[in-house]
């Protein structure tokens, strides 16, 4: 199996093997072995659910540090729209961008601007004939979820790049034009709300990514707050309109595009429910589905510092304020090919028991037999998310029946019984000798 890059990693020293994360993972990608969580790499979709649930902060996201800016002659920050919702309402985007610039970037390009361009491209795309409902490509965790669990629906995903990629490309082109820089001299850094975007940069869905790195929103938050209060920070003009900024929260994308009927779903487990419905052939009366892995959308990302509900109110206020303002003229590409994904999104069939189908069928029979025999409590003590998953792990050769504490106890009981039985038995030689002794004693 091909090696995948993952942003989500485990801090071995912090993990207690408590099994909280294995239950929550939407692709059953985590096991606890030897008292530590273990991520099955090819199944992980980097959604960050385990980062959220872990009570010991043992799951973390690998992101880039500001140190990496030094590797480039010219650096550009790409703030995700969700960043604006992390600050108090009195702090406007101009000030936030100014603070960001003081962290060492040469320029800023707002992802909200890219989102506006993508909204136009989407409107265009929706005019053409496609399988229904079309599914948004914006959340990489959802796209990866579909590769693993819903490969039959991949053809529903719009073949359009994400606002992050489009912004990065626009930012690069601008820098090349303005300053005559070479492509490799420019470092573009996304200010990310989630690990899924980091993975999407290192392992893009298209031919390549225009982004060089990702900096976690929560890591630089403290510094940003600090800079906001500094007298040296000067506001930077914000070009974002309401429609682009709205992409930062659930429902915002649908708001920005025009179609007859759309549906917005957020939270990975709700997304799964809706995808299941589509897979059964339902919901084809809907034109467009906006699906986001995080509850609330990107403002609820695993790497955002602010509470989701607080962020949501702030976001709504900002969008309202922006929509009452005159929109600033933007020069955005019109050519549909500019936005196209350059590669098809292919399935990642990671569930298969075996490459050989007949062998897989007999293995499945074995899984059924073992599942039947397990207690069905799904307690997770075995380190697998459910009894059924343990059965699959056993058949794949990654676990043993004795991992189940109930099965282990059953075996111990049998063993104990056997020991009792054995202890009652006497060696034949010795037994007879004593018998004789006793008899002899009696007669005496």
């Amino acid at each position, binding site marked *: 199996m091909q090696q995948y890059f993952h942003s989500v990693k485990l801090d071995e020293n912090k993990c207690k093997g408590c099994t909280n994360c294995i239950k929550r993972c939407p692709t059953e990608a985590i096991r606890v072995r030897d008292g530590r969580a273990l991520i099955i790499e090819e199944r992980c979709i980097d959604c960050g659910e385990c980062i959220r649930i872990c009570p010991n902060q043992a799951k973390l996201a690998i992101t880039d540090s500001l140190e990496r800016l030094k590797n480039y002659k010219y650096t550009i920050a790409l703030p995700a729209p969700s960043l604006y919702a992390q600050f108090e309402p009195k702090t406007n985007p101009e000030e936030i961008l100014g603070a960001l610039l003081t962290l060492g970037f040469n320029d800023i390009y707002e992802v909200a601007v890219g989102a506006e361009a993508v909204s136009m491209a989407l409107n265009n795309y929706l005019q053409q004939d496609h399988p229904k409902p079309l599914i948004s490509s914006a959340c990489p965790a959802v796209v990866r979820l579909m590769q693993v669990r819903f*490969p*039959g629906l991949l053809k529903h995903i719009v073949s359009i790049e994400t606002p992050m990629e489009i912004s990065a490309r626009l930012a690069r082109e601008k820098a090349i034009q303005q300053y005559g820089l070479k492509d490799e001299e420019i470092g573009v850094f996304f200010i990310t709300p989630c690990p899924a975007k980091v993975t999407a940069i290192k392992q893009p869905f298209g031919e390549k990514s225009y982004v060089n790195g990702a900096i976690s929103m929560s890591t630089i938050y403290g510094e940003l707050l600090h800079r906001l209060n500094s007298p040296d920070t000067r506001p930077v003009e914000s070009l974002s309109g309401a429609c682009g900024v709205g992409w930062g929260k659930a429902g915002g994308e649908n708001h920005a595009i025009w179609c007859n009927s759309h549906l917005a779903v957020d939270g990975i487990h709700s997304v799964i429910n809706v995808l*299941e419905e589509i*897979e*059964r*052939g339902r919901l084809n009366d809907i034109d467009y589905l906006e699906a986001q892995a995080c509850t609330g959308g990107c403002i609820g990302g695993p790497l955002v510092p602010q509470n989701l509900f607080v962020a949501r109110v702030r976001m709504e206020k900002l969008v309202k304020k922006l929509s009452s303002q005159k929109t600033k003229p933007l020069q955005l590409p019109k050519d549909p090919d500019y936005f196209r994904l350059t590669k098809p999104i292919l*399935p990642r*069939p990671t*569930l*298969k*028991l*075996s*490459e050989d*189908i*007949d062998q*897989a*069928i*007999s*293995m*499945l*029979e074995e*899984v*059924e037999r073992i599942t039947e025999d397990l207690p069905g409590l799904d307690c997770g003590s075995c380190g697998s998310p459910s009894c059924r998953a343990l059965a*699959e792990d056993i058949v794949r050769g990654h676990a043993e029946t004795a991992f189940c504490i109930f099965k282990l106890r059953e075996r111990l009981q049998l063993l104990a019984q056997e020991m009792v039985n054995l202890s009652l038995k006497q060696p034949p030689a010795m037994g007879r000798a004593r018998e004789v002794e006793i008899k002899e004693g009696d007669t005496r």
Partner: protein
Amino acid sequence: MQFEFNIEGMNFTRAGEAAAKIKKALQLVGMEVETVRKALIVAYEAELNIVIHAYHGKLTAEVNSDRVEIKAEDKGPGIPDINLAMKEGYSTAPPNIREMGFGAGMGLPNIERCSDKLEITSEVNQGTQLLATIYNRTSGEK
């Protein structure tokens, strides 16, 4: 190998469970993406038909490397005119069921569209049997 599920009439909360389990099994076996998609739709529609129209029934999935066979047998009112029932949009589901978004008369046509072979027999006031076959063709060809 074979999977069997008992389906209760009118139990909408559990509708779809059997189909979901069949899908998971087919993915574990490594069936083609299209085979899984079609088998899931056939199983789901057949399961729903039992829930909506019958008193109770049984759904069986027989998995072979080259095909999936889905059988649905129910005890119920049966179908008086199968040809009519195969028409898109024709439904005998009562209004309360339609209000729930089910029984739009797409069940049997969907099953037909997704199966390579389909046999339906029915006896009024007894029940209905359905046998759908989906071949596991390598992707690309029809």
